[in-house]
């Protein structure tokens, strides 16, 4: 059987890659992608727990569904903001967007 810890390690790796991406990427859309990765890492852990801890009555999977919906909503609003940024600053490069008012 695949021990639970393998899944948790994999979830951790993907989560930390997402954190690294979110902190270092210059393109706003790439940051959104990294955030999606972080949420996916978390999802993996939830589903692993639901599979290995039968007493939790699949709460992990229910929570994973909620994470997916929230991720979708967050991606939509994030992209709308990026479009607004782009229309005013003509760039999506996060470093160049440092004015509070455009």
């Amino acid at each position, binding site marked *: 059987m*695949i*021990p*639970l*810890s*393998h*899944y*948790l*390690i*994999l*979830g951790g*790796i*993907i*989560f*930390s*890659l997402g*954190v*690294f*991406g979110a*902190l*270092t*990427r*210059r*393109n706003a*859309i*790439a940051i*959104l*992608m990294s955030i999606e*990765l972080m949420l996916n890492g978390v999802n*993996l852990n939830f*589903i*692993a727990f*639901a*599979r290995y*801890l*039968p007493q939790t009555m*699949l709460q992990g*999977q*229910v929570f*994973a*569904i*909620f994470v*997916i919906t*929230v*991720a*979708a*909503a*967050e*991606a*939509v*609003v994030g*992209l*709308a*903001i*990026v*479009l*607004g940024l*782009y*229309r005013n600053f003509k760039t*999506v490069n*996060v470093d160049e967007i440092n004015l509070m008012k455009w």
Partner: protein
Amino acid sequence: MTLKLGIFYFLAAFTVWAAAVVVLGKNIVRAAVALIFGFCGMAALYVLLDAEFLAAVQVLIYVGGITILLLFAIMLTSRIGATTARVVNDQVILSAMAAVGLLVGLIYASTSGIPAMSGPPRLPETTPFLGRALLTTYALPFEAVSVLLLAAMVGAIILARKE
């Protein structure tokens, strides 16, 4: 049992490689394509964990919805065909250290104190159970999420609309 482990390692490697391309990829479109393959790898992992409903939902919503939205945004914002010279900003070393530190903490937490349990041989069909759970025990979060989605839709339309 080694077959399942073999499949797991292959899928894990594939997903981590895709995530790495997303994070470090030069061309933003290549990053989006890698993201798609990353999500498909995750869906395969969910099937390994007997969560096939979630695998299908993951493919349908993440790949069929969010990635198309991302590609849409990329086409609308970047000059077509432009590849950004510098991908990472100057605080790369600091954030790399923070990420590695986080990773070490997570690995320690996930290996120590968890007995090598194996859990039931095979979960029964999860979809009906999920459906019943969502509408009975988790009815309140279910309604809250629907309100959240509505708010997100309205907000996005207002933000993205051209004045």
